[in-house]
């Protein structure tokens, strides 16, 4: 059984990331992220074929990757993700729903269509770009604080009642 991850992003600036960064600016944080990237993160568990199987299905379903507006890659290959400014220090937070019917329905659909997929899990990956010389532990703490909406004035990217977050790369 292989676990294969795919990251998908827009070829143009992501409006969700632009809105999020503007909302963060309005929060007047002491050390806000300078840049923000958003990726769809798909994690497939495939019984055979590994990356070849995943490449085939990604090419097959424009709901996963719409080649007119999106591009994709296997994120393990890179130390920083595609499209990111290497002059910044990046920290990633993946947000996923506790109960995710979309992933369950996708798994069923792919099985019915004959793809050797045992399961898949969809998350949104937010990558926060901080100043290069910022302490790494501090950037992780700031990214985490910014990611969980415990209060209206606090984090932004996940509702802790229905979603979970994890550090990514």
């Amino acid at each position, binding site marked *: 059984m292989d676990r294969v991850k795919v990251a998908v992003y827009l070829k143009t600036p992501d409006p969700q990331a632009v809105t*999020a960064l503007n909302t963060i600016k309005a929060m007047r944080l002491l050390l806000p992220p300078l840049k923000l990237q958003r990726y769809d993160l798909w994690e497939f568990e495939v019984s055979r074929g590994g990356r070849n199987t995943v490449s085939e299905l990604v090419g097959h379903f424009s709901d996963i990757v719409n080649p007119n507006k999106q591009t994709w890659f296997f994120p393990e290959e890179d130390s920083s993700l595609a499209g990111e400014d290497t002059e910044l220090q990046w920290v990633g937070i993946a947000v996923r729903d506790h109960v995710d019917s979309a992933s369950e*329905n996708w798994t069923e659909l792919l099985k019915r269509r004959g793809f050797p997929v045992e399961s898949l899990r969809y998350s949104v990956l937010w990558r926060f770009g901080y100043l290069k010389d910022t302490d790494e532990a501090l950037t992780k703490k700031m990214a985490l604080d910014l990611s969980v*909406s415990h209060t209206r004035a606090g984090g932004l990217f996940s509702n802790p009642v229905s979603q979970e977050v994890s550090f990514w790369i």
Partner: protein
Amino acid sequence: MSRAAVIRFPGSNCEFETARALKNSGLNARIYNWNDIELLSDNRADAYVLPGGFSFQDRIRAGVVASRESIMDLIFEEAVNGKPILGICNGAQVLLESGLVPGWKPGSVQGALAGNLAPGRSGYLSGWINLKPASEAIERCPWLCAMSGEPIPVPFAHAEGRFVFRKEDTESVKSHIGLTYCEVDGSAPDGYPANPNGSALDVAALMNVDGNVLAMMPHPERSFYLWQVPPDLKGPWGDMRRNSSLKGLEDQPGPGAIIFKSLAKYLGGNNG
């Protein structure tokens, strides 16, 4: 005449029919943009409605960006002062993301409207469902005080409408239930489709601690008139629609009117 303010965010799309429902219930309704803060601050209303739509294109998460806007500080203040506040669909999402509902600790996010959970389906779902008020809610909530307890059919249309609470809050949340999904005869639903999104405790609308703020996922403004009821709908409202003559149909109240009539009744006095 009592005044109601409908707050329009970028991406709201139900503000006109919501304002019309309020006006036709005898209230003086006006639409304010999300950045009309000074104007609204100087002309406080007696009640506020956050209408349905896709505020800020549902970016990040439905309702979360709107919940951070400065106008929500004013709504927050008015809610704490006991003014009636109604969030419909996307407005309900804004209220939950603002921490106004359930509001045990106002400002803390203690509930969520998560993605629909329906067998073999995901994403956006729409249709007509039946709603029943909790008896305590009729006594406490200005948006439900004219309801008789009989079920009403109302349209719903959302992708993220499943009320979710922490396990430890399940008991406490029961006293906040405003409306639940039900079968056409008012009995508890046996899952989908009567409960269309897998909502915990079959909740369709949730109140805050004081009962003056109501977060409601279905759209009462879309069933304000009887002509909006589909003729093939099961139950007494469907019968009424089928038996109605075309003449005068445009003025006959529909099942959703009771939400706005409740507010008019609550505010009382010069709403004639």
